[in-house]
């Protein structure tokens, strides 16, 4: 399972970081870093990542290749 970020849409609200801090991080300028960009997530982070996708207020996150 992967998560894709639409960086045009991301406004840096930071709710993904609250839900999945091991996957998403806002840097000092408030820009999003996705620690698993283009990679499959470790299984133990999948639930947190799903939660992050669910709480993005502008729907900038998308699950790919997940049931």
């Amino acid at each position, binding site marked *: 399972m992967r998560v894709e970020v639409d960086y045009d849409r991301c*406004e840096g609200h930071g709710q993904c970081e609250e*839900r999945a801090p091991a996957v998403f991080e806002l840097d000092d300028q*408030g820009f999003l870093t996705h620690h698993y960009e283009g990679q499959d997530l470790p299984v133990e982070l999948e639930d947190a990542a799903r939660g992050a996708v669910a709480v993005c*207020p*502008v*729907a900038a996150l998308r699950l790919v290749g997940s049931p």
Partner: protein
Amino acid sequence: MTTTATAPRYDADIYTDAALRDPYEHYRALRDLGPAVRLTAHDDAFAVARYDDVKQVLGTPEVFRSAAGIALNEPANAAILGCTLASDGERHAHLRRVVAHRLTPRALRPMREIVVEAADALVADLVARGSFDAVGDLARALPLSIVPDFIGWPEEGREHLLRWAGANFDSFGPLNARAEAALPQCGEMAAYGAALVRDGNVLPGSLGASVLEARDRGEVTDEQCMMLMLDYLAPSLDTTISAVGSAIWLFGTHPAQWERLRAEPELIANAVQEVVRLESPIRGFGRLAAEDTEIGGVPVPAGSRVLVLYAAANRDERHFADPDTFDVARPDALEQLGFGYGEHGCAGQGLAKLEVQALLTALVRVVTRFELGAPERALNNLIRAFASVPVTVHTDRSGAPDHHRR
């Protein structure tokens, strides 16, 4: 798609004074009737009240359009056509880009200190007074001391802002007496916005000034410029004011929750989400179905008006456990839909959360208990709010019997 079912119907007017005072039983009934319910009292608009369906509709903006769809009546939809709220697709993305970058959390970082200082000063003053109106003296004071400057609205005309903002939201309902009374005031506001653009009369360095610069670069037209001046003003006042008034009322009526917040102030951000979930400031917005479609299996023909009820979704027992319970530590409060969701998700939510969090942070340091007087509801077609919440605050220093807290 096997959508042979017909939509259930609901006959009550959900915009009467009584319904606006207590909308939640209507919303429960709508959720229980089905994913999309015909409102026979409101031109057969489809009400969407369940969490999953609200999220689905908001997440499908190419089918459920905002242009000509936001309000439940044609005159209001015509009046706002072309503003960010009431546009779709590329046009919407373009307009949002002109302004929203000033409102993102990263752009707001320099604002943080200003907001926190203003909140601290305001709370210190009110706590010293002891008794005050949590709406008039607290909830209104902070956004009014920050937002008009931020947007760049000149001093003259500010006395009308709250009346115009309220009228703006009233106009989005069905064409009832409230909406009819509001429409001429929306006209006043639009004329004022047009004059601002014509005269370039905005504060330097403000959001409004950057809108005029975008116009000068040819990125937006004069008319779009006028819309943008108003787009972020009206929604940034009543909503935040509603959340702060509801927060004080909720903590006054749930003293154990305030105790919890005092013990664990790191829950403040979650508590703000919980207040917005339980007493969603914007009950809902409309959409227009652009094609024959369905909502949760209920067929919705092209051209149907759809009323997306955030306030109902936020109390959906299919999604939230004990949805009517106020719990500042609720684990999934962040999933609330009070700021909308997706392409049209509230652009100003960063500023709103910053303001409410700053006020609660200042209050939690000194106030041990809120003693409420008799609150009074403000009735608006769209906004859930109090007109006044009289309150006396008790502090550790006030010598009140709060010392033996449990």
